[in-house]
């Protein structure tokens, strides 16, 4: 049986810590554990846009995926491959908490690993941080790395 751990990555030091912890957990499980790195590009279908932005949105989306893949996912996958770990990566658009949970459900993952969110300010107080939202809404266990 293969266990999948979803790890939220965004290229930040905090997300590297989350990945490091997930790697330790995965190595404890052994060969049967795979990591799924998920990089979320924040996107809301309810954001107001200009005509030009709409006309170029598809192109923009492809560019965002390319940049996130090249800068965040691929370097990490190389590292993990060098360490002998099985890993895949994907870039998705949406709200971070929802997108990570969806990716976990889709992959039938055992757990989600994320770093503690750096959200501050009024919106985080009113609506809760991304991490808090994920912890409250996720369908699978969530590990939050400080």
């Amino acid at each position, binding site marked *: 049986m293969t266990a999948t751990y979803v790890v939220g990555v965004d290229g930040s030091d905090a997300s590297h810590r989350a990945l490091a912890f997930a790697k330790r957990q995965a190595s404890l499980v052994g060969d049967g554990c795979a990591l799924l790195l998920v990089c979320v590009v924040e996107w809301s*279908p309810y954001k*107001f846009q200009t005509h030009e932005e*709409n006309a*170029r*949105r*598809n192109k923009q989306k492809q560019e965002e995926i390319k940049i996130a893949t090249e800068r965040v996912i691929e370097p990490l996958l190389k590292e993990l491959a060098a360490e002998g770990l099985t890993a895949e990566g994907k870039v998705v*658009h949406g709200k971070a908490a929802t997108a990570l949970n969806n990716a976990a459900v889709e992959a039938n993952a055992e757990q989600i690993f994320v770093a503690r969110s750096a959200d501050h300010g009024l919106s985080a107080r009113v609506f809760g941080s991304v991490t808090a939202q994920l912890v409250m809404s996720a369908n699978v266990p969530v590990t939050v790395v400080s």
Partner: protein
Amino acid sequence: MFKNYIQAALFALLTLGSSALFASEGLDQTVNAIFASSTGWFVSLIFAPIPGTSFPWIVLWLVVGASVFTLYFGFVQFRSIGHSISLVKGDYSNPNDAGEVSHFQALTTALSGTVGLGNIAGVAVAIGIGGPGAIFWMILAGLLGMASKFTECTLAVKYRNEYKDGSVSGGPMYYITKGFAERGIPGGKILAALFAVFCILGALGGGNMFQANQAHAQLSGVFGDYPGWVTGLIFAGIVFAVIVGGIKSIANVTEKVVPFMAVLYVGTAIVILALNADKIGWAFGQIFEGAFTGLGVAGGMVGALIQGFKRAAFSNEAGVGSAAIAHSAVQTKEPITEGFVSLLEPFIDTVVICTMTALVIIITNQLMFDAQQGVYLVGDNGHIQTIGDASGVALTSAAFGSAVGWFPYLLVIAVVLFAFSTMLSWSYYGLKAWTYLFGEGKNTELAFKLLFCVFVVIGAAANLGPVIDFSDAAIFAMAVVNIIGLYFLMPIVKRELISYNARLKSGEIKKTK
């Protein structure tokens, strides 16, 4: 060859207009005279009354078109409104399409081009001339216009151009060309080119000069009389920064502030109506009674009807084909879904926002009413007499101001922002028509964008009545071409509708959340 002729003709026309930028008053008059003599026939043709009546045939054309689409699609606007709202909410959106243009975004972007002066000034003009009864016909035109939007926006998505780099272009130019070719109907290319020419002229006139002119009128009302070219240069500078300089932040701020202003405008209207809730029944009574009797306005019932239909067409642009360009950017595998979403546009614009404005004007007793005779007092100019002799934006401002003292100041900001937002929308529509005629390319696009900026200054600075009349006529001429196209292509939309409804009923198409 054909392209060169059109380009030469357009440049001649546009250069003639732009020469007025540096014009003295004398040259203004010369330009006016040239325009009046060379284009007056066109304006007269578009706005000509039906023989024996005072009813402009173009208004009838739009209403007949909307009625035909309403009947042909089995009152789709009333049967599908619930499904339209579900689509906007994203209930049927494919999660894999996250990051693409949603139905909500296509709708709000299109609304940024239609919600504006028509909702503030247009309604006041309709009431001022046609009385409260005009609002009944305006609402009716709005409800019928929902079917026109449904038809044109479905076709716009179905026949849009999707380029290799992922960008899209759509609108009447594309669906007339491709749809006619698909059905084996000749003349599609000529009709599409004609639409594009009218769209460019409409973009530079009604979508640009008229907006700049009205914005300057508002600003000079607050800051005192000052030269229009000052407003023109400032506006042109900002428009230049957005459409040529690509400074997204200004466009983004506008696109965020305009919906906020619209919500604030409607919210204030709701508060005023709530405070005068006991008068709402009476106000609707005036609207219904006026619709069929005129309540003393010039032209009676027909006068009210003409004003209502005409202003609705100005406001929601249903059948004109402009919004189809905006809606074509949506991400969907089912073109008909954007048709469902787009029919909400005339509903929000005309049925909701225009009605709100009208109710506030009526309830705050801005119109002088002879209670004994049961009629409105009409002045020598044929307009209903109002408190302070206000008309247009000033009438709306006075109505809101009588209930909320600070609102007129907010309304000035709203009018200026709405005007700016409409200009940005029309710069896009005009550009799409321009690139359809002359091809995609940086230099081609830059030529149009620079012309557009020049016309901002002209619109604010000059009093070129005939030029503006011509550009208004060009916007309505877009509707002539577009609706001809829609008549030929509506069977395609019908097929899409039947197929989609069958799959929806069978459960093949289901909610994703």
